[in-house]
């Protein structure tokens, strides 16, 4: 595979590629940021990137949104299944976010900080 091939391939699968990049960025935000709210946002970025990935799977060139109209052949629509699944995924993400935020509020109340390292330090460095 030459460089050109790779680039063409990436162009062809650009959504996948960018979804992976966003996934990594989100993952990095989640792992290396000490701020808990940043972690939550990173988690959301990670999740949406996967949703993007999933939605891209369902796309069909020149396809319409799957709202049926009489007389249009089924091949003219995009695959509705990934969209249906992602709808669930979005709600899951927002649920986790809401709960995580409630935990953060509570943690702030107890520790007076939303910095993971600070919290660790207050707890006595008991990481393991």
């Amino acid at each position, binding site marked *: 595979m030459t460089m050109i091939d790779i680039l063409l391939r990436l162009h062809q699968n650009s959504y996948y590629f960018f979804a992976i990049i966003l996934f990594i960025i989100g993952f990095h935000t989640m792992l290396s*940021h000490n701020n808990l709210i*940043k972690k939550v946002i990173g988690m959301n970025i990670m999740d949406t990137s996967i949703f993007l990935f999933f939605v891209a799977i369902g796309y069909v060139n020149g396809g319409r*949104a799957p709202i049926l109209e009489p007389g249009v052949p089924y091949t003219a629509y995009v695959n509705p299944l990934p969209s249906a699944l992602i709808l669930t995924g979005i709600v899951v993400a927002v649920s986790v976010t809401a709960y995580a935020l409630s935990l953060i509020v509570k943690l702030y109340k107890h520790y007076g900080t939303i910095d993971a390292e600070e919290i660790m330090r207050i707890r006595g460095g008991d990481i393991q």
Partner: protein
Amino acid sequence: MSWTRRKGCSAVTEVLKYLLLLFLVVCAIAVAKTRDLLSAVIIFAAYSLIMAILWQLLAAPDIAITEAAIGAGVTTLLLVAAITKTRREE
């Protein structure tokens, strides 16, 4: 119905797509780099909206609406609420 408009592989759409995708990446990095949490949340809302547009491009209006309402709306509001209860700077 307007939301089911036919899309070809026109160059304009391609460029738009790349612009949006790049913008997404920029937003994501900006979220990570911004030290002001409220700004980060606003940027994240923008990110969500871009994402919704992208999904509209991908002919998935249902989740575009949902993302706009939940990702850009509710999640942002919840984040703002959490920030007001805690502190704004990282």
